[in-house]
Each structure stands twice: as C-alpha cells, then as structure tokens.
C-alpha cells in the first residue's frame, strides 16, 4: 500500500527571515501518485518540500507520514521511508556512479554492517531504473550534467523510500535527459507504488507527467487537483501573471502563453 503524506497548518520560516515563507498551509499528498509543485520563483516550492521532508523544522503545524508525525521518527527511520533529493547536490568528482548509489543505502545499513544482498538488489534496480547501469564505474566528474542528475536520481531510488521528494529534477537538463528523469519517476511509481512529490519549473511538463498539481503563490496553496482542473487561464493569470490559452491534448492540458498580464 502506498504511503500518504499530510501537512496540517504548516508554518515554515528560515532563521533571520522577516516573515514565514509558508504561513499555515495544509496539504494532503495523494498516495501512490506523482504530485507536482508549481509556482513562480520565490513562491515557496522548495521550502514546502523541505518542510515535508523534515529538513526544515516547522514553527507550527506538523507533517504526518501515514498518520505518524515525522519529527518524532528517528532520522534513519524517516530516511528509510522518505527520501529528498535536493536541487543541485554536489559530490567529489572522483566518486563513481555505483558508489554514489550505494550511499543511498546509508539509512538501511547498520553503522558497521557490510553491504548485504538487499543493498545490492536495491542499487542494481535503481541503476537500471535511472538508466545509468552502463555508467556505474564512471566518476561523476566525467559525466554530462544530465547523466550526473540521473546518477543522483539512482542514489535517491536506491534509498528505496515510500515517499520520494525531488526538487527541480529536470531543470537545466536537455530534452533527452528530462524525459529520462520523468520516465524513471513514472516507472518507480508504477512498479513500487511510490508517492512522489516534485518541484517542477515547467508548468507544461508538470501538466504532462503529474497526476496531481499543487499551485503555490506567495507561500499559499492557490489550487490543488488534477492538471485539467488546476490549469485554467484564470490560475495562470493570477499566479504566473501570464495571459495564456489552455488546450487539451493527448498528454494532458497544453499551455500556450500569449503575453504577460499588465
């Protein structure tokens, strides 16, 4: 059964910040589906994602994972069930793809346990899902930006979480690697029933791949639902400040931006 993530009255702020980035929002993430967080720059997408992952302690409110408050779970216990891949993680250039993927097994291994067969299986599955098995012995420093992002995705998949949170996994990638990332995420959802939340920069990409969309504007949830109901000219005008036509296509709604709203 897929895991459910619930945030209630969540207030998230950074130390020294003038006001909360997210001020008392409640969000329920649908289990076993891909949910895209979209919104203009500075609308609080990444902050919400970090709050959902317990990487930013809420000032008020709480996040429940299948009914359990996540801040009460042990760090490793939580990491076995919930993974977060940050936007642009960095690693030593000499690290190989396979070793990076094995680091995803960190929460599953006792501090002094050697690699066991479960670890090997999870890593092999993750490398294959991300399509980087053939790059396993290559150091990260030798790879293209897209290949490197897939290697990090393999690490997050090797962590084998029930809930996977991804911060802009496709930004700055060429088309081919964007498709590879999204295909891996969809296969993971279909095969393992993983609940996925991802921040996407590109609204149209979100509409095409996500089962649900959450539109954030200035730290508040403006709309939440499937792409067809969420993506309306009114929402695009109010949140993104563009006048746009929304057409329905075979891969979900298509957005044709026309001009900025004055």
């Amino acid at each position, binding site marked *: 059964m897929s895991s459910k993530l619930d945030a209630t009255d969540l207030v998230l702020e950074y130390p020294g910040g003038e006001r909360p980035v997210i001020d008392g929002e409640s969000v329920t993430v649908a289990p076993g589906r891909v949910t895209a967080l979209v919104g203009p720059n500075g609308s609080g997408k990444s902050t919400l994602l970090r709050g959902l992952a317990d990487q930013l302690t809420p000032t008020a409110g709480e996040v429940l994972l299948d009914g359990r408050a996540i801040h009460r779970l042990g760090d*490793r216990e939580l990491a076995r069930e919930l993974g977060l891949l940050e936007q642009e993680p960095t690693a030593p250039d000499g690290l190989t793809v396979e070793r990076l993927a094995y680091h995803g097994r*960190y929460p599953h291994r006792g501090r*002094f346990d050697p*690699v066991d067969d479960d670890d090997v299986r999870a890593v092999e599955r993750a490398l294959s899902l991300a399509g980087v098995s053939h790059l396993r012995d290559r150091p990260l420093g030798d790879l293209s930006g897209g290949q490197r992002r897939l290697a990090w995705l393999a690490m997050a998949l090797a962590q084998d979480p029930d809930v996977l949170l991804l911060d802009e996994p496709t930004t700055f990638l060429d088309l081919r690697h964007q498709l590879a990332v999204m295909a891996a995420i969809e296969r993971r959802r279909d095969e393992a029933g993983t609940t996925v939340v991802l921040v996407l920069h590109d609204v149209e990409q979100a509409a095409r791949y996500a089962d649900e969309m959450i539109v954030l504007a200035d730290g508040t949830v403006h709309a939440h639902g499937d792409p067809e109901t969420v993506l309306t000219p009114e929402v695009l005008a109010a949140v993104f400040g563009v006048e746009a036509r929304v057409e329905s296509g075979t891969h979900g709604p298509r957005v044709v931006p026309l001009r900025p709203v004055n």
Partner: protein
Amino acid sequence: MPRPDGGVEDAYEPSAATRRFGWVDRDLLGVVFGGSAVVLVATTLQLSFGSYDITPVDAWRTLLNPAVLLDTAAWRAFLLGATVPDFATGTLVVWTIRLPRVLLAVLVGANLAVSGAILQAITRNELASPFVLGVSSGAGLAVLLTVVVFSGLLPFLPLFAAVGGGLAFLLVYAIAWQGGTSPVRLVLAGVIVSSVFGSVQTGLFLLIEDIGLVRSVIAWTTGSLVGGDWAAVRMMLPWTVLSLSLALLGARELDVLTLGERTASSLGMRVETVRFALSGVAVLAAAASVAAAGIVGFVGLVVPHIVRRLVGSDHRRLLVGCLFAGPALMAAADAGARLALSPAQVPVGIVTGLVGGPYFLYLMRKHGEFGGL
C-alpha cells in the same frame, strides 16, 4: 530481459560477498607497499647512521636479533618502562635510541595524515589540515604558558599541549556555532582563534629571558623528533590506536558527509553530532602527535591530498592509504632532518615544510583550481 540501458539483466550480477573486498585494488596496494618501502629505507638509514655508525646489514641483524626480539624483559622495558636489560652498545643504540625515534615518526605521520583526511572531509575543503581548527595555536600557547608561567610543570608539557589544542578546538566550535555549524564558519573561526592565540604567543616569547629556552620552544613549535624515546612511543601508542580505529570505523560517515550536509541529512545522518564526533577523533589524533613531536606542519595537509590523487575519495581507501603514506613522509623527512646536516639536526617540521610548500606550488601551477573537495 532487456533493460532500458540496453544491457541484459543477468550479465552483471554482483553479490554482497564479491563486493566486500572489492575496495582493495592495485592503486591502494601500490600506496601500501610504496609507503612501506619508503619507511623501510628510512628505517635502515636511521638505524645505521649517526655518531655511532653501524653497517645497514648489522643494523638489521641487531634489530632482528632473537636475543632481543624474544626477550620479555626487554619488551617490558620498551613498552612498560621497566629497566632495560644489559645489552651490547650497538644493540642499545639501535633498540633504545634510534628505533623509538623511527617508530615515533611512523605514529606521528599516521596520526597527522588521518587527522587531515578527516578534517578535509568534514570541512569539504582540501586545504584543511589538523591545525586549521585551532589545534596548533592552542597547543603552542599552552606550551609557552607552561614554559613562561608554570615552569614547575615542564614534565607535563606534552599533556598540556594536547589539552591546549583540544580546548582551542572547543572554542573554535563554540564560535562557529549558530544553531548549527557550517564548514565555512568552522574554518573562519579557526583562523580567528589562531590569529588571536598567535599574538598572545608572540607576546609571551618576549617574556622569556633565557635564549636557550627560546630555542627549544621554537624547535618544539616547529615540530621535532629529537630525543624521541620509548617513553614517547608508550605515551602515544594507545591514543593512536584509539583514534585511528575510530577514524576507520567512521569511513562511511565521512563518505556521506562529502555529499554535503543537506544530502547527508536527507539520508538520515545526524550531521551535527557526526561532525562533532569525527572532529573530536581528528583532534585527538592531532593532539597525540603534538604531544610527542610538537607542531609538524604540512603532513596533515599534503598526505591526504597525494593519497586522494592515487586512490580516489572513498574514505576507507583514503584512510588506509594515509596510514601508510603518512608514516612514509614523516620517516623520510625525519631521516633528512637528522642526517642531512649531521652532526647538526634540524627540526623535522622544517623539512616537511620545505617539501610540502613546493608541492602545493606545483599543484597550483598545474591545476589552476583546487581546494573544493
């Protein structure tokens, strides 16, 4: 079954068992054997030459002499501090004067190299060294205070030095702490503490009237193995074994820390706890070497750097490499320090500095950019 990457499912199926020793490879063995060979050569030089010359063959014959090797009374003297049994002069020179100095160089080299490797991982900065977190300034200040103010406590000098280094490290950590630390704040706090302590040190120097004492203090703050004996080896050995074992047990934590604190934290690591504990291990290793040899520069900086180039950044391999390369550099440098200008001896820290400085100059010229891990 075909896979999206074009491979075949069963073509490569590593099991957990085959992976277990996969980390020992030719590069690492090269460092292990190369390092050991350098130590053996340096040992041969150190045992043979000096004011009492012995041929290398005789030196090794003396070292492998079963009459000493299998003598429990001798080992009780070396390791527990009992009286040394009556041996021939050559045996005494090799076993009680020259060998402990070599052993000390090996221990100091291993400690400094491992300490540097840990601190470079924690700060994610290749330019970090055991002394960047204030250890050297704290130890130096403690030494000067002992000499100038508490001269009655001179026999405890190494202990005070280690305590001073540890306290300075805690001070650095406290300054860097703002609801958590960061590599940058740690390094900056280290620089601040070092410069303040450095000023106080310089001031204290002016208060010493005995020039001979000034010389010995300078030798100490440069790092020197002159007079290294079994007592120093005994003092250092337990701390070395403790800190190096802890370091090796923490290898995986170090690997994950180099992925950045956010990734480490998402993987379920308590980053602050682990970072503080590992810094503590690094300071312990550095303090043990400070207590035995003073402040030997560059070893903790250069050795992890060279080993990383040879075996990569996997910390199990890196630390094991450092356990062999550190002693190699230190033993070779001390052979140079003791024998190059014989009968005069220079502090070994001067030799490591003369080797380490140009190495970094070479790196700077060859690779426009380095520093980030």
